[in-house]
């Protein structure tokens, strides 16, 4: 009792009121406030970086989705385009793109004459240069596909040259044209007149999604068609190769594998594989799939094989986590009424782990979609202007992929390609956002609670 009273006495004697915080308490509160501030600052820096990145990409890339076109009536004269007059494709195809280019150029000059639009110092040849070098080829393909067009006068929408497109988007100015060997200020002034006359307009650029890549001289015709196809082929192949293998490996490791040195080694290796730099996988793919196995380079099959190697660890790790998250009581319950190990896994564990597996798979695919470095090494960075054939043969055809297209456009000289590179980044980001949102929705939709 004496001890107790002595203690309470000492306590009361401290004289500390609860209403005024002690010095120690103040220090603790200040430390906590500082810590919260650090957290807020870190988040703000991250958000600002993201905002700046998105802003610059959108600023430079959105214009890739619009394209300048010239509209003028054009007579598809039979004498020029089908000299024998029998409308046979083989005969007609003797007229080359050069022939069509002349038709286009002449039609534009004639229309300008008719409207009385002229610019001093701009020759007929220079007027023809307002038209994209790709337009003749496109027109030729259209006419060969539909010979009935010959002899009619069409009101064609013709792709304008890249510099004219750049002028409408503000990238090319009269000042820059002075220094540019591809365009003269006179041509730009003529373009301005055409724009005011309504002949030169900017519209939605479907070609950006459907056209193959184009050469340095015709950025206005370059599109993501081959890259989108190649990426789609690869994603399908990665899905088909990775999901069964990854899920089977995870089930075996989690549910069946004995715990010994071998399985430990396998686990460590799987985790390490996820950390191997992607360029190393590229070298591996080059050595094994192309040089040793003899698969065609630049093909989506080889790309998918390499990316599968990189995605497998991601899928295995996610799947194992999902399987481990299924409570052991469910396994006990199934085993306790006499389900076999396999029935337990396939009837109970796997369905419950499915949302996690799906989420992991989608996120793995999303990172696979953005993978670039290994594809460079297996030749998918090549200039491919032919679409790969439909699958399955197309899996062996040369193709590119979205991120690789971003890379190859970004390394071209013409600023018009930089615009397209940013546009391709936007397309890639849209796909990634869609995949991530799908992963989140799936997780929400199928999440179970015990």
């Amino acid at each position, binding site marked *: 009792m004496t001890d107790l009273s002595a203690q309470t006495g000492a306590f009361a004697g401290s004289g500390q009121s609860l209403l005024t915080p002690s010095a120690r308490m103040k220090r603790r509160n200040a430390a906590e406030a500082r810590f919260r501030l650090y957290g807020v600052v870190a988040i703000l820096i991250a958000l600002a970086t993201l905002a700046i990145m998105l802003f610059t990409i959108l600023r430079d890339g959105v214009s890739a989705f619009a394209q300048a076109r010239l509209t003028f009536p054009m007579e598809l004269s039979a004498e020029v385009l089908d000299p024998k007059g029998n409308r046979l494709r083989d005969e007609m195809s003797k007229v080359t793109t050069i022939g069509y280019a002349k038709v286009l150029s002449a039609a534009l000059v004639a229309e300008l004459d008719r409207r009385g639009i002229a610019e001093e110092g701009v020759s007929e040849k220079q007027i023809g240069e307002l038209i994209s070098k790709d337009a003749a080829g496109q027109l030729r393909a259209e006419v060969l596909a539909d010979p009935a067009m010959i002899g009619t006068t069409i009101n064609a929408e013709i792709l304008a040259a890249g510099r004219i497109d750049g002028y409408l988007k503000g990238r090319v100015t009269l000042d820059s044209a002075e220094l540019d060997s591809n365009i003269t200020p006179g041509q730009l002034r003529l373009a301005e007149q055409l724009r005011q006359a309504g002949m030169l307009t900017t519209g939605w650029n479907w070609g950006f999604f459907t056209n193959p890549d184009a050469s340095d001289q015709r950025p206005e015709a370059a599109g993501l068609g081959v890259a989108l196809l190649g990426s789609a082929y690869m994603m399908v192949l990665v899905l088909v190769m990775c999901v069964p293998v990854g899920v089977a490996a995870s089930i075996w490791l989690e549910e069946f594998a004995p*715990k010994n040195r071998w399985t430990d080694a396998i686990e460590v290796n799987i985790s390490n594989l996820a950390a191997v730099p992607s360029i190393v996988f590229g070298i591996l793919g080059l050595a094994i799939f192309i040089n040793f196995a003899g698969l065609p380079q630049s093909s989506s099959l080889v790309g998918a094989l390499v990316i599968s190697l990189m995605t497998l660890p991601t899928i295995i790790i996610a799947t194992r986590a999902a399987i481990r998250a299924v409570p052991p009581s469910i396994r006990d319950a199934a085993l*306790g*009424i006499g*389900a076999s190990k396999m029935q337990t896994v396939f009837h109970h564990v796997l369905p419950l782990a499915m949302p996690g597996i799906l989420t992991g798979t989608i996120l793995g695919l999303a990172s696979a979609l953005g993978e670039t470095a290994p594809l460079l090494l297996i030749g998918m960075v090549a200039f491919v202007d032919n679409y790969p054939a439909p699958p399955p043969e197309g899996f062996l055809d040369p193709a590119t992929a979205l991120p690789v297209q971003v890379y190859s456009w970004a390394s071209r000289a013409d600023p018009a390609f930089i615009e397209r590179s940013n546009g391709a980044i936007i397309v890639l980001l849209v796909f990634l956002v869609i995949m991530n949102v799908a992963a989140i929705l799936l997780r929400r939709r199928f999440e179970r609670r015990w």
Partner: protein
Amino acid sequence: MNAMQTPVARHALDAAVLKPRIAATGVQVHYGTNHALKDVNVDILDRTTTAFIGPSGCGKSTFLRCLNRMNDTVASARVTGRILLDGEDIYDKRVDPVQLRAKVGMVFQKPNPFPKSIYDNVAYGPRIHGLTRSRAELDEVVERSLTRAALWNEVKDRLDAPGTGLSGGQQQRLCIARAVATSPEVLLMDEPCSALDPIATAQVEALIDELREHVSIVIVTHSMQQAARVSQRTAFFHLGNLVEYGETTQIFTNPQDPRTESYITGRIG
């Protein structure tokens, strides 16, 4: 102590005529280097509730899990000795534990219905063992099992509702229905009421008494009162040893071993 006299007294009459269902002799269990169960000899009688009591870590759950070979799922567990079910050694190489578990059902500490419908929970066992030939037959088994688990009247209108949506006590009775659906001969219960409130506990205890008509029941419990209420025979485990095994009345009123007496009077445990 008076409360438990009645069921035990009633059982005392039958004891002489009941044969052992399970005969365990010299059972030892090691978890790695840990000797968890030391030389246990127990006979589980037919149509009897046998309670395993003892302090935590005494080996009672370990022994229970030997009886349907659930210890097989623990990689480090090693079981020696003989456990005969109806005269057959369940640890014989030819025995498939999957088949054994259909005959020796189990109910766990925490209610663990599958996240499926009530119907599918009960029908799962008969389905995987191919016990029924038609949907009608399966319906009948489900109804019979739920009735035996005293749950039918509460759920008959919502058999398609998820089993996880039931209350704790209902979930545990659903697990019992699931276990009896395969018509087991022995039902093992590992602290089936420890996660339940007193009312649900009373329901499950009443159920145990009814189920005893058809199967022998082995129940592990922390509650001595529960052991006294539901069981006819009691085994007291301590530090991996089976200390004492006998009529519940005798264990609780006249324990032979000083350790048993200390435990039931609350001095150890």
